[in-house]
């Protein structure tokens, strides 16, 4: 983005706001204020579009605990050795400097919906006119008997990218020859439906080259999974005999783990494993629950046309945390929803034009070197939900050239969406 006078004033304001630390709420204020919690595909995109299209008319604050954000999407490719860890890390410098967004690295720990303020762990209070919650996911307690977050060093989830992803990769690399890698897959709904199965593919890619007699066990409570035919075809083509999938018919839904013993108990039968990737059942990130906008299932119901909470019209919930209808929980979906929400918020706060909401999603997965597949759909907002209008999926038996182009396309998309998020 080119620096012009308006941007320059914006960033100067951002710098002074950062220096004086979280502002104390005041009674009267000039520009309408939007606070965005969570700097991932939903939150970073929403903040950027509000600041960019608001053209200085909206005061945008982004609250994100980490200084370097590691994307969950493509973190499997790091596990497989296709990406450097640093290549999936992003910082917020451009959002602050080029877009004038007030970026605060802190945890949001409270939302007062009557006073319209957010409390930060560091002690500050942020007033808002509109609040955007894009906190991603948290895990449901007790979802996998024997596992809780204190066990995540022994049995990592690696389903929030960062040190957990690095830990899982180092455990994979340290596996004894002929050892067993176990994945406990999550029940629906969960972040990134093809994610666990792409991860298994990446683990298999590593093992094939470094530990070819090793085995992979997937313990799955679901009778079927995303892109199943494509993954299973790929696994038999590339990793024949290495991967065993245990669905609910064979006790995949009756699993217990013993982190201290490195044991997995499947339908009463004890199995020793060397690495165990436990991906528990999920719910919306904690701040959504604290704000009181989640339902009994743990997700935040929203109106499709605006992504506004069904509980509070001044709060918008994006991405994985939202309960919106037909879209999968994916980074692409969160990015798409963020633009719709940003437009609706701008319209409400500044009177700018509001066009009909359109949503899209595409999820690429890598099975083996240059063997990429994809699934995607388009959506519209109905009174009831975000409803699917059209879709496509890669086909089994596609030729190598098409699969290579599909993989290359996913790399192009990664560059595209991360520029769209972080500027």
């Amino acid at each position, binding site marked *: 983005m080119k620096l012009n006078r308006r941007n320059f004033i914006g960033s100067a304001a951002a710098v002074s706001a950062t220096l004086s630390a979280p502002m104390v709420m005041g009674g009267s204020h000039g520009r309408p204020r939007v606070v965005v919690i969570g700097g991932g595909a939903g939150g970073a995109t929403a903040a950027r*579009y509000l600041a960019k299209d608001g053209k200085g008319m909206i005061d945008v604050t982004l609250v994100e605990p980490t200084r370097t954000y590691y994307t969950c999407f493509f973190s499997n490719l790091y596990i497989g050795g296709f990406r450097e860890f640093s290549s999936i890390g992003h910082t917020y410098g451009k959002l602050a400097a080029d877009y004038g967004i007030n970026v605060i690295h802190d945890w949001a720990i409270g939302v007062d919906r009557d006073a319209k303020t957010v409390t930060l762990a560091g002690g500050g209070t942020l007033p808002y006119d509109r609040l955007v919650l894009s906190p991603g996911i948290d895990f449901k307690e007790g979802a996998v008997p024997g596992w809780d977050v204190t066990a995540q060093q022994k049995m990592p989830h690696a389903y929030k990218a960062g040190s957990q992803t690095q830990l899982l990769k180092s455990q994979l690399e340290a596996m004894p020859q002929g050892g067993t890698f176990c994945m406990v897959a999550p029940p629906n709904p969960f972040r990134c439906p093809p994610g666990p199965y792409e991860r298994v593919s990446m683990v298999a890619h590593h093992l094939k080259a470094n530990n070819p007699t090793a085995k992979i066990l997937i313990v799955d409570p679901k009778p079927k999974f995303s892109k199943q035919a494509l993954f299973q075809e790929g696994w038999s083509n590339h990793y024949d005999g290495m991967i065993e999938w245990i669905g609910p018919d064979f006790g995949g839904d009756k699993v217990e783990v013993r982190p201290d013993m490195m044991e997995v108990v499947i339908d009463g039968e004890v199995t020793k494993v060397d690495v165990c990737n436990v991906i528990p059942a999920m719910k919306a990130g904690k701040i959504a629950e604290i704000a009181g906008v989640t339902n009994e299932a743990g997700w935040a119901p929203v109106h499709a046309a605006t992504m506004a909470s069904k509980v509070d019209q001044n709060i918008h919930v994006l991405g994985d945390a939202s309960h919106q209808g037909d879209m999968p929980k994916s980074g692409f979906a969160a990015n798409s929803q963020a633009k719709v929400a940003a437009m609706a918020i701008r319209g409400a706060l500044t009177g700018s034009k509001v066009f009909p909401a359109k949503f899209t999603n595409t999820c690429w997965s890598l099975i083996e070197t240059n063997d990429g597949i994809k699934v995607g759909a388009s959506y519209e907002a109905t009174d009831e939900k975000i409803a699917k209008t059209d879709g496509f999926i890669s086909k089994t038996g596609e030729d190598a050239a098409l699969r290579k182009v599909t993989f290359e396309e996913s790399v*192009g*998309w990664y560059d595209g969406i991360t520029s769209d998020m972080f500027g």
Partner: protein
Amino acid sequence: MIELRHVLLSVIVACFAQSAAANHADADAKRGERVFKKCRSCHKVGEGATNRVGPQLNLLFQRVAGSIEGFKYSESMLRAGADGLVWDHDTLDTYLENPKSLISKTRMNFRGLKDAGDRANVMAYLRQFSDNPANIPEASPTTVGTDHEVDPAILALQGDPEYGEYLSSECVSCHQIDGADSGIPSITNWPAEDFVIAMHAYKDKKRVHPVMQMMAGRLSAEEIAGLAAYFEKVGQ
């Protein structure tokens, strides 16, 4: 049976729509050879034909686009081939009418054959240089003579760049606005007409990419015009 139906249809077509349609139904390889003069300075066909400015055209039908080893194709042509574009009567007819409708940045610097009869004839000529010409399905009589060009009224639409900017937020999740084009082609600063032609080719499912067919499929002609107007000028 099929033969008979084919003949009957041709007869019916000939009876009821005498002039143009009749012409196309009996495409004439001899006339096609004369039309091919326009192509000959770049393309060779027949025994011993080699690549020149353009690739040689023996065994063209059922060939995957961009697949002759050693010929230097445009990026766009290679991508279309990888996406699954195969030359048959219908795809060639579309390409020959306006090359850019299928391959935006094709190296084939040719305005196209606007006359459906010319296209049918030149294809009749070219199919003789296939392995087994009799086995190549001709386009069904109903599709012969279809006009593949985008309706001039659509091309004349003045797009609203403000609306285009809003709609573009869907495009830039994949196509980078700064023009970077690894893996996914750039659409930044495309001539508006090329943009409109390409998007309508996806919308009509003449171009094969499934994501783009879906994206274009739900855009109206006005929305496509808005996007074209926005992307043509963005950043300038």
